[in-house]
């Protein structure tokens, strides 16, 4: 069933502190026993640029952003034209803004929302050390019915170092906001939280990916910073030394990917994180990992492309390069988490897959997932730990690339007596000796493919939910809005099956056919311009003859209602 929730957008120029306010709001909601999600809309400026904290809070788990914002609080209107499209409103929306910032821009009024003027700046200025964002926070909290105590708790923790005056000033701001809220009526209040049964986490997708990798056994990381992947690295850097690992910052992505090849050759599960431009630079070395059969995990957090594109915004656009970006016949593994919570599992599983199959795994996350923070139930741990088939010491006639039935050959970890071999990116004999011989090439190509296609992936290939003749096939961050769309359609009596593919490559036609069982028609949903996912599916699988797609590029998030509408239009034969 579709959930009831409140959605709030806080916007303002960089210095205005809307991100801080949003974060406090989310944390306070968590404190109050609620669930929530906070996405970020960021501009290119480092400081002083336009930005928006995009929240949704509910007493039930929040899967996705909602269609429109119930409340939009604009601390100012700076550069609003640049991201207005990311702030959908309806006639039921309420804009809260400061008349001192000038009239509400026309393009915010197209949906005919209610406008409420509050002199935010003036209120803040009237207080000692008063800050606009605190006034706004108090106002919002009061409007949606978030208890003051939970906010004060969060602020107290955050401002501990700054001393009691800072907290008092913030409290005064909050109260001024609360007071201002009194005159505003007709705003949906949050339903009170249900009883909490499980431990709740507050985590963003990038942290979740880092955690999953750590749990899977990653102990060596080399990387070069890039938006929006850097937080994975920033989270891992201080954690790794606690578990005997380390992170090094490389001079570039060519170095970082080759460094993790070296670390992994040394027997230590290894990772790098990057985004499109960095992944492109890693293509050659990824091929080396395939040929030399070196396990590794590359977490690619997608952003708008092509080229430098739109670094701070989200799109599912690196599927092509992740699947096909290497020269030669280079079978490898591509995975994609389909929720923030699933980032933990998918990253952990990916380490397991890399190690088990001695192959590179590219995990595709994106800005929308990576930089959004969610209040979630603590994710279950399925216990996947990366472990590779190690060669024993002093095996006679050890062959690193022995042609085995499974395609997986025992790998001697340096230090193993008698296991000495040379890993090679040249085609090679089973022993590893470079070879141009047709039979060696054929058997190594077969083996490198077979080890991936014959592996037992268990039930984790994808999430298949519901049953219907109509299916939506999707992947990654668009899964959650799709789930919500399907829930809403169910409320209206329209049943749709969800197939969200977690293991994008290798292609496993049996799994796909099984997922399609009973399905007569399908809609492929993805967020990019060129239907990368749909084209891929067509290439490697048999889709129902009646298959359509719903896709468009970023940076505007695909909302549940769009998918609902697309399904309805399809049903009507539009």
């Amino acid at each position, binding site marked *: 069933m579709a959930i009831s929730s409140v959605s709030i957008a806080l916007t303002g120029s960089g210095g205005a502190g809307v991100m801080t306010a949003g974060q406090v709001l989310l944390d306070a909601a968590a404190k109050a026993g609620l669930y929530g999600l906070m996405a970020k809309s960021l501009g290119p400026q480092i400081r002083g640029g336009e930005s928006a904290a995009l929240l949704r809070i509910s007493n039930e788990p929040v899967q996705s952003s909602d269609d429109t914002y119930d409340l939009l609080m604009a601390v100012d209107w700076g550069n609003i034209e640049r991201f207005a499209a990311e702030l959908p409103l309806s006639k039921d929306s309420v804009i809260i803004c400061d008349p001192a910032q000038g009239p509400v821009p026309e393009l915010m009024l197209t949906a005919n929302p209610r406008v409420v003027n509050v002199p935010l700046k003036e209120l803040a200025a009237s207080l000692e050390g008063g800050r606009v964002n605190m006034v706004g926070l108090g106002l919002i909290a009061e409007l949606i019915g978030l208890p003051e105590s939970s906010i004060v708790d969060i602020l107290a923790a955050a401002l501990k170092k700054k001393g009691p005056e800072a907290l008092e000033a913030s409290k005064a701001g909050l109260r001024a906001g609360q007071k201002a809220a009194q005159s505003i009526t007709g705003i949906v209040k949050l339903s009170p939280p249900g009883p909490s049964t499980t431990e709740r986490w507050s985590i963003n997708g990038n942290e979740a990916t880092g955690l999953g990798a750590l749990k899977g056994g990653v102990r060596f990381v080399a990387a070069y910073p890039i938006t929006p992947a850097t937080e994975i690295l920033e989270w891992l850097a201080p954690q790794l030394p606690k578990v005997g690992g380390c992170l090094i910052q490389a001079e570039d992505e060519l170095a970082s990917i080759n460094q993790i090849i070296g670390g*992994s050759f040394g027997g230590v599960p290894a990772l790098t994180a990057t985004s499109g431009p960095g992944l492109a630079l890693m293509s050659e070395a990824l091929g080396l990992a395939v040929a030399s059969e070196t396990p590794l995990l590359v977490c690619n957090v997608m952003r708008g492309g092509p080229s430098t594109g739109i670094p701070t915004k989200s799109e599912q656009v690196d599927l092509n390069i992740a699947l096909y970006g290497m020269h030669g016949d280079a079978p490898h593994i591509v995975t994609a988490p389909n929720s923030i919570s699933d980032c933990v599992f998918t990253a952990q599983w990916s380490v397991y897959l890399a190690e088990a199959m001695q192959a590179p795994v590219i995990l595709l996350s994106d800005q929308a997932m990576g930089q959004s923070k969610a209040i979630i139930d603590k994710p279950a741990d399925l216990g996947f730990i990366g472990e590779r088939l190690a060669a024993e010491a002093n095996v006679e006639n050890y062959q690193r690339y022995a042609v085995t039935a499974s395609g997986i050959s025992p790998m001697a970890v340096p230090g193993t007596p008698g296991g*000495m071999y040379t890993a090679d990116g040249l085609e090679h004999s089973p022993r590893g000796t470079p070879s141009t011989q047709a039979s060696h090439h054929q058997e190594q190509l077969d083996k490198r493919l077979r080890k991936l296609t014959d592996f037992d992936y268990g039930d984790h290939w994808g999430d298949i939910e519901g049953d219907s003749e109509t299916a939506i096939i999707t992947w990654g961050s668009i899964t959650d809005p799709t789930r919500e769309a399907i829930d809403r359609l169910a409320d209206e009596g329209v049943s749709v099956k969800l197939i969200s593919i977690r293991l994008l490559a290798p292609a496993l036609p049996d799994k796909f056919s099984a997922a399609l069982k009973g399905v007569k028609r399908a809609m492929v949903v993805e967020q990019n311009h060129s239907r990368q996912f749909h084209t891929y599916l067509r290439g490697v699988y048999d889709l129902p003859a009646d298959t359509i797609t719903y896709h468009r590029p970023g940076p505007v998030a695909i909302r549940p209602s769009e998918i609902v509408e697309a399904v309805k239009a399809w049903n009507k034969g539009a």
Partner: protein
Amino acid sequence: MDMLTAEKLTAQDYRSDLKPVWCPGCGDYAVIAAIAKALAELQLPREDVAFVSGIGCSSRIPAYSAVYGFHGVHGRALPIATGLKMARPDMTVLVAGGDGDGFSIGGNHFMHACRRNADLTYIVMDNSVYGMTKGQASPTTEPDWEGSKLTPDGTHITPFQPLEIALSAGASFISRAFSGKPAELTRQICEGVNHKGFSLIHVLSPCVTFRPEQRAYKDKVHEEWRPTADRTEAFQKLMADDGFATGILYQGTKPPFRPEMGVPATIAEIEAQFAV
């Protein structure tokens, strides 16, 4: 295993049974021999040594040794070696390759490896040419060499100065040897491996096929350098260098790069940070 046997390992024990793809007379034969000899001198257990390279005639060298090896892609030997050393500080890591691999496509990693000063020994077989791709100019090629079809009138570019760059970038051990003087080369490899930090061993190693005139190196080299720990002194020596002085130019004392270890924690303890 090697450790337990009473017998000493010989140079031959550090060689594999593969026949090199090199041309008869190539300088690189002497380099693999010197490496094997140095390893025998050091009596390092074979399984505790790894030998990493890129792509080129010279970069084929790891497979001719009997230690762990990684024959990577062109120009990326140093990153692979760095990653290995960071993840496995217990291993002795040698790196080798050519002037093209190390100074052209791999130039950035070279500079940053010198800066980082991880405990690696980097042996560059410099023949001032791309041997493997059949004779193009490399960064160390003389500007007026007209032997390549790609630069038929010469490159007109100042040759790359590996030792100057290494010194500027912060390498803590820098030497030059000639493949035709294997004893000195062996000695430098031993010193380089024993040195704690990044060691560059620049080996003049003739390409008899595309630079047959390099056979004359043997008349040009002169043993000259004694190690100094004074960068200014080392620079002065380089200012006077004719490119054929051999010996250890510089040996500094800065500690090798090692990532910090942390206070141990369990995954559960780490996860606790996310609980609301």
